[in-house]
């Protein structure tokens, strides 16, 4: 008799989005099937991992996350270089956490300077991520867009409240946008429509659905991503046919269980391996749900996930 594999027919495809400078271009997207469902479609461009660096020395990181970068955390450019040289980072994500008015509230000038330094130190595409405060992100990311014209940055988060200012800057200075909405497929679609209306070309849009870490809201994000892919690939929802970015490391490593030491939590095993697995597992689940770009932190977690991507893509 023989079992006939039930295949799903897709009628849509994810757009291919080129990132970074022409000399060192990385393209993401292009899927014509659900994640890793390679028996019925293609993933011509395997998912990519961006390693994060911070604009100021992180203060609350657990030892496990800090250790690999202890020698460079005070200098984002050196940090970025180490990620590329020692850990083979495919992209860098500069997190402008210190610009947060609730944190050090550093200025737009300082952020521009940090961005320029990092951009000069690496060849790979650079993601620049604001602090999430609407007013401050508008000011900071706009300045960065202007002063780093020609760098082909990926700027995020670009939210509904900031999309006009940042969308216009991205058009004028040729950057890519990470369109960010809070875990809601309709809001995601709406923002992509707004960006289109503003004149942002499709090949400059990446979608950030907002993510929570394992045990802290991951399931909502996982399902929104699955629904997003379903709409894009089987319902021809053209305004959702964009690659997905998951800014996950900062969510994973901020939770209590990622920070407890071996002594504080004997039932949670080795603190470094625990943190690595929390991060890698969060990343893997998002890959299975449709992630194209993962922003990650720990080199061991990244290595595990890269291996997994190869295994899922391989024969």
């Amino acid at each position, binding site marked *: 008799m023989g079992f006939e*594999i039930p295949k799903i027919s897709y009628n849509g495809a994810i757009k291919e989005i080129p990132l970074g400078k022409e000399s060192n271009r990385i393209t993401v997207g292009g899927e014509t099937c659900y994640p890793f469902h390679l028996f019925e479609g293609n993933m011509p461009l395997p998912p990519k991992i961006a390693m994060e660096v911070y604009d100021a020395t992180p203060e609350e990181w657990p030892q496990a996350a800090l250790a690999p970068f202890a020698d460079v955390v005070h200098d984002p450019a050196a940090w970025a270089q180490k990620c590329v040289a020692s850990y083979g980072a495919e992209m860098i994500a500069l997190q402008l956490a210190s610009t947060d008015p609730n944190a050090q509230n550093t200025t737009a000038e300082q952020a521009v300077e940090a961005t320029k330094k990092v951009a000069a130190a690496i060849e790979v595409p650079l993601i620049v991520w604001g602090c999430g405060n609407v007013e401050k992100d508008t000011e900071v990311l706009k300045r960065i867009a202007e002063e780093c014209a020609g760098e082909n940055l990926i700027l995020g988060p670009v939210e509904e409240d900031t999309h006009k200012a940042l969308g216009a800057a991205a058009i004028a200075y040729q950057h890519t946008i990470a369109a960010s909405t809070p875990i809601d497929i309709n809001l995601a679609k709406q923002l992509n429509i707004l960006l289109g209306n503003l004149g942002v070309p499709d090949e400059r849009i990446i979608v950030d659905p907002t993510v929570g870490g394992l045990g802290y*809201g991951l399931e909502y994000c996982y399902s929104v991503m699955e629904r997003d892919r379903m709409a894009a690939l089987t319902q021809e929802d053209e305004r959702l046919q964009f690659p997905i970015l998951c800014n996950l490391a900062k969510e994973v490593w901020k939770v209590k269980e990622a920070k407890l030491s071996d002594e504080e939590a004997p039932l949670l095993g080795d603190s470094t391996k625990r943190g690595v697995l929390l991060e890698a597992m969060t990343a893997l689940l998002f890959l299975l749900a449709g992630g194209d770009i993962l922003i990650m932190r720990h080199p061991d977690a990244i290595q595990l996930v890269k291996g*997994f991507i190869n*295994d899922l893509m391989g024969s």
Partner: protein
Amino acid sequence: MALTGIQIYKLLPKTNCGECGVPTCLAFAMSLAAAKAELAACPYVSEEAKTELADASAPPIRVVEIGTGERKLKIGGETVLFRHEKTFINPTGIAVLVTDEMSDEDVAGRLERFKTLEYERVGLTLRADLFAVKSLSGDAGKFEALVTKVKSQTDGGIILMTEDPGVMEAGLKVCADRKPLIFAATKENAEPMAALAKEHGCPLAVKGDGLDEVSELTTKLTEGGLTDLVIDSGARTIRKAFEDQVFIRRGALLKKYKPLGFPTIALPCEMTDDFMQETLIASMFVAKYGGIVVLSDIQGHSLFPLLLARMNIYTDPQRPMATSPGIYEIGGPNEDSPVLVTSNFSLTYFIVSGEIEASRVPAWLIIVDTEGLSVLTAWAAGKFVGDIVGISLKKSGIMEKVRHKKVVIPGYAAAISGDLEEELGDWEVLVGPRESAHIPAYLKEWKA
């Protein structure tokens, strides 16, 4: 799976006698199709129709039970491909491998970790479920001894792993009363294994080289009267194993293909030598359709993330877990103890109350009804705002229980402090830390 009213009607007596409570057979058929009536309400339905209807209404993926008593594990019974469509029902069982060639120490370590690695989260106990006891030596006596040891030291479920029916029988002799999963029937040994499964009333795993072979085996076994089957497609590479899981789930749900309408078992322990990678592979099967995963070992740092993954994937996507609103006393607070307020999302409540407890500072925790949304989400949705929080505080009766007039709000909700002060009159609103991990330090400093 589900029959339409018309299809059911064809199987009914069509006499319209009305004894079932509705005037016509057609009306009764419609009620059945809508699951608003029980077939038993019609006294005249034929035996033949009964079997046919039962068959047609059987779930597309059979529910298989392993073990007995409190720790009985149910797998299968899934009805969707994506969790947002309806909820995944029976969480992936997590099994730990012990073999008869492991040192006593290795076995003891696994038994010990199986017992102690338990975690309370949102009011649930998270832990591993089963022991996979494997014969490597082929020696029936050794196997029997190991099964005896495992059985006596744990109340978890058991999987017996050997392809030698003689050895299997030795294991079953010891633990058949615990309803273990027999692993596995293959092309070579299907008959004697099926006989053992029947004799002892135990579920049987089927291991084939690919889905065609599996289908042939399950067909043969069901024809022989066995219904509680579990599938191992034989794939041991990540990509193939992932694809097989998708094929099996789709075959059962989209094609109603009966030979694959069973839960699956996956063996990350046979797919890699790297323990970290193995755990990650297990999480893939949690998301993508594994009924059971067998791991070479569990450690706190591997099991805890995996249990979180399982909890996340198997929660109801439509209804957040919520805690009832009101006053919660932590550590025996008195009239000078601090008052804190938070949302009624279960996760938030358990995290925050856990931190307050850890601080050892007795405190009052007021839970506001946010319809199960977390603090930030509720704030963004207008459900954790000044007037709502203020009214809940007043209604809770906390103001009569304390002498001071101070309430601590979550740091992420700092924006509501002005409105809340206005609502509360002469009470002072203190903005607490953002992350709950900082609550203990904060409470130790707190003064009435």
